[in-house]
């Protein structure tokens, strides 16, 4: 290092802020420094909310799509007006004759004032189902009741009544089964 360099170095190294000035700057810096508040986590919170929102939206959409698929299938089946292959007015009798069905086709949740006319096999969303013909005792309207086992997928169906192409379909679930009642006119039953 040259003589000039040494002088320059010494010159600058002799310069210093006063301790009071240092303290003042440090204090002001500390006051200005934001404490770790919720703002520090706001990007994480926003991301978490976004993910939760996305998951909920996806579930909601998936559930709506499932309901729509089930209702469309039931409305289509109902509009075919297929005859009952087994004619009976007794649920136990029908249960016995539909021997491939391993779930109860009768439930206390089935609307009153309806008389059983008979039934046949069918399917809902690829699952074996029973298709029951019911007649309203007062109006004479013939309705179709679908019963199937509540699979993990069908558990996501929500209770709902929807009218589509002049066919009103009412969906409801019991602990074991999914029920769907389709009729040309709105059903009188409420749940």
């Amino acid at each position, binding site marked *: 290092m040259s003589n*000039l360099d040494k002088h320059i170095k010494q*010159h600058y190294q002799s310069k*210093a*802020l006063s301790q009071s000035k*240092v303290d003042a700057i440090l204090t002001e810096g500390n006051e200005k420094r934001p404490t770790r508040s919720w703002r520090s986590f706001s990007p994480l919170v926003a991301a978490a909310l976004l993910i939760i929102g996305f998951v909920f939206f996806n579930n909601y959409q998936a559930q709506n799509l499932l309901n729509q698929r089930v209702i469309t299938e039931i409305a289509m089946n109902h509009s075919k007006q297929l005859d009952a292959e087994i004619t009976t007015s007794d649920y136990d009798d029908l249960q016995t004759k539909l021997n491939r069905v391993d779930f109860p086709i009768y439930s206390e949740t089935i609307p009153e004032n309806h008389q059983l006319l008979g039934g046949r096999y069918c399917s809902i969303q690829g699952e074996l189902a029973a298709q029951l013909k019911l007649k309203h005792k007062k109006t004479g309207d013939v309705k179709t009741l679908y019963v199937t086992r509540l699979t993990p997928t069908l558990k996501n169906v929500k209770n709902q009544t929807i009218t589509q192409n002049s066919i009103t379909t009412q969906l409801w679930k019991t602990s074991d089964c999914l029920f769907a009642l389709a009729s040309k006119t709105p059903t009188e039953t409420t749940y």
Partner: protein
Amino acid sequence: MTYTQDPQHILQSGYRYALSLVHQALDAEDLVHDAWLKAYPKYGTKLTQSLFFTTIRNVYIDQYRRNQLAVFEAFDEETYKEIEIDTKHDISSEDLDQALAKLNSNEREAIFLNIVEGYSTQEIADKTDRSRNTVLSHIHRGKRKLVHTLTALINRRNPLQG
């Protein structure tokens, strides 16, 4: 609270760097103060001397030099030679202060970073977004000016030895 580096040391070295830029003590204090209030809330205890120097430089450019950026021509490295002052007299701090005042901020900054902080010319070039030749030019011209001013001051005070 654990700092990466001692904040007092960062402040003091920052002050000396600020002095190399603005030369005036009060201006350097203001510059360090402003830079600290900008850097500390951002980096906190992770603030290092290098980051603080960068902040000081940015604040300096913003506040003092926005419209006065000087453009220096590149400098041929081969023409750079060690410059030494030829005197038997000690250089006083006052003389050196006067001589440093005659340099422009680019020259003082380059000399400070090279001699006091020990950065290589390439490191200074990287830190200041200049070419290495330009940094060499600043150092060389600055030293030449210093020698010229210091020699004049010493000769004026000691005319018989001139």
